[in-house]
């Protein structure tokens, strides 16, 4: 009995998906659990595992094709089976071939490929030509956005050199979530400059004799986890009528991607050791960069750390990543002139310092609460043994 393979929602926010690669071809045997294709969603590229068995009789959505969740992308069945009834109307037919009182909605809407620009007199509108002439712009340098790729007025009016880029799914989500965070959470910022020697010393000791070096972020995660355990109000989420105080310190790391960012989460950092956190982070970051994170791996961080130290940034303020109510922005560790009071009075010495800035949502975290947490964390960074106490 032939079965339809539909585009499914591989993440909660997914509305459409693009098949980037078919891993099975027509005629191949498919077992339940086999990966039949790779689908690009708003967040990442994910493996689509078949939930049925059979021979892949027909690939309906070709590589590169996009479909809405619920649309038909392939058909599985027995070799030689008649599947014409399942396929429905082809894209360009003027009449649909639905017969009978079928209960399921029609599927398989494949948007037509963008038509190539046509040559000849209508490659550009007369108005566009006139405007280009008036402004001394060469029409050959312009890409048209009109019908059939025609150059129209708006293409000539866009200032030269500008490139109009369509907004990707990921960018839309970043724009939406961070705008919402910025415009609904009243942000305030607390900065502390910490002495980084101890921190860097711990890392050096851990890494002595290790081939795979532990990252600074892993140490920050471990200490932040313990600090959050002592300050549950900072590890909380605003819920309108209630505030949820998280039971574990689930910390996200802001990871830069070619055209965006994602925050993979390490759960329960308050109870994990540095090495465990480091190996989890390494795996998550690698998969994040390859676009292969599962939704559960980047959702639900109660606290986030963003580290721009490797970019040479001294200090910065970050936007709170929902559902958390605070985010820690870590700057580069640098040698700086510092005042130290000794037996002979004050003197200036060179010390390695690192600026950390905590953004807090004032609906959940009042100034004194945020300050107490940050001071505690700063003390632990300067004296990591305090994290064990």
């Amino acid at each position: 009995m032939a079965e339809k393979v539909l585009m499914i929602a591989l993440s909660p926010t997914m509305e459409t998906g693009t098949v980037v690669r078919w891993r099975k071809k027509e005629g191949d045997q498919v077992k339940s659990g086999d990966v039949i294709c790779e689908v690009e969603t708003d967040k990442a590229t994910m493996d689509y595992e078949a939930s049925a068995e059979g021979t892949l009789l027909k690939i309906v959505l070709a590589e590169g094709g996009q479909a809405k969740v619920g649309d038909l992308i392939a058909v599985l069945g027995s070799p030689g089976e008649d599947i014409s009834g399942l396929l429905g109307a082809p894209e360009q037919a003027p009449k649909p071939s639905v017969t009978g009182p079928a209960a399921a909605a029609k599927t398989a809407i494949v948007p037509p490929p963008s038509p190539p620009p046509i040559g000849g007199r209508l490659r550009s509108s007369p108005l566009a030509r006139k405007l280009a002439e008036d402004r001394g712009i060469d029409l050959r340098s312009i890409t048209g956005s009109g019908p059939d790729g025609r150059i129209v007025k708006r293409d000539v009016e866009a200032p030269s050199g500008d490139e109009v880029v369509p907004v990707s799914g990921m960018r839309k989500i970043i724009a939406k979530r961070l705008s919402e965070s910025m415009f609904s959470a009243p942000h305030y910022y607390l900065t502390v400059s910490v002495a980084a020697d101890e921190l860097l010393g711990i890392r050096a000791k851990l890494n002595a004799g290790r081939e795979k070096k532990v990252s600074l972020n892993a140490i920050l995660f471990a200490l932040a986890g313990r600090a959050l355990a002592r300050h549950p109000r900072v590890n909380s989420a605003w819920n309108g009528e209630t505030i949820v105080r998280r039971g574990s310190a689930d910390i996200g790391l802001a990871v830069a991607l070619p055209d965006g960012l994602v925050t993979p989460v390490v759960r329960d950092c308050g109870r994990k050791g540095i090495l465990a956190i480091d190996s989890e982070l390494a795996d998550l970051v690698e998969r994040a960069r390859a676009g292969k994170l599962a939704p559960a791996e980047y959702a639900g961080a109660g606290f986030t750390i963003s580290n721009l130290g490797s970019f040479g940034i001294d200090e910065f303020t970050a936007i709170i990543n929902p559902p958390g109510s605070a985010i820690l922005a870590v700057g580069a560790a640098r040698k700086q002139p510092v005042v130290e009071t000794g037996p002979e009075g004050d003197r200036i010495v060179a010390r390695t310092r690192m600026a950390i800035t905590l953004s807090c949502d004032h609906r959940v975290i009042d100034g004194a609460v945020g300050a107490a947490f940050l001071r505690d964390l700063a003390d632990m960074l300067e004296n990591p043994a305090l994290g064990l106490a």
Partner: protein
Amino acid sequence: MAGFDFDVVIIGSGPGGYVAAIRASQLGLKAAVIERDRVGGVCLNVGCIPSKALIHQAELFRSIPGLEAMGIAVDKRGFDYGKVFEKSRKAADTLSKGVQFLLKKNKVELIAGEAILSGANEMTLKTGRKVTGRAIIVATGSRPSEIPGFPFDEQRVLSSTGALMLEKLPRKILILGAGAIGVEFSHIMASFGVQVHLVEMLDRILPLEDAESAQVLARSFQKRGIAISTGTKAVSMQKGPSSVSIVLEDKAGARTTVEADQILVVVGRTPNTDSIGLEKVGIATEKGFIPVGDFYRTKVPSIYAIGDVVATPLLAHVASKEGEIAVEHIAGRSPEPRLDPLSIPSAVYCEPQIASFGLPEWKAAEKGLAFAKASFPYRGAGKSVAIEQTEGFVKVLYDPKTKEILGAHIVGADATELIHELLLARSAELLPSDVASMMHAHPTLSEAVMEVMRAVEGWAIHA
């Protein structure tokens, strides 16, 4: 995700709903239309179509003096308006059946009944039946607006619906509202010999159209004996056994009382959004209209709204276009997110006809937009003289630097057909020289369009 009855469920089978349904079917979507009254909505049944049928009959009646001028004696005593009315119903019925046929041909399921929204993907009919769709399009249209103090009874106080269903004409009628509908009814009634008094609150008839075009029509109406009172509002009325007396007040506050057999109130239309369950899905209306964004989508991603329920011009072709855009979006295509408001043609079907698109001069001036204009009189085109229809002009507004066509206003015979050549020029971004250099058949009224574009270029031949 599977399990919806339809890809798209459309409430309303007017020009918005039925066009959306057929387009949906063409794009491979399974569509249903829910209609509580006659298929085709207001436009086909008690709007555009019957009114144009009545206007055509009025034109036939008005040709009587022309026949008499040929020596034919015409005996008008047997005139029966009931027969005129029947023709308008025949046109409405034919088209309503035609739409039903088109829906059937395109395999759109037509569900008779009244439905309200019961969820983001669900409608519930009065019978209790539930219909679900991946997307829903609200196309419930509008109804005539009432003025407080002048409730419709469709006997003494008529709405446009009542006026279209008259089987007997009054001797004298007072028409409140001189927008397109008011002037069309004035034309129809006056053509059949009814004494018409047209009353408008703003300073001129057709206040939203080009002032010069409205002037031509106003002069024509006055010559025909249609009384016009502008800057005047109706204050109160008193219904008698067979007539109604209305108190009018002008800008200075002076009041007069007028008598008429009937009063027709055509001051606007109200969207049908009050009892369709919008609150169930969290959609709040603004002044009765449903707020929509790109692709005519409401804040509920699966619900779209088009036509008279949306705050765009209340025109049938606007509803159809919005339906097309919404459906293309539902089908996964990328249409232009909204229709271009400057490319909406508007048409008034009395004699002389008025048609236009783009900004009227007063609006362009209000916005501080630089524009130039050129005008060509109908009498400059030989055809108009041959057919004794020399009243009117073709006017075009254009950008003084680039000559981009910004708007056009035509008043005269067949204006509502002629406007499309200019509208096409605008939407294809053609320049006046393109229209000016194209050969136009002689003798046609379209030559006036060619000449006005030559006037833009400075070389009109027949001016």
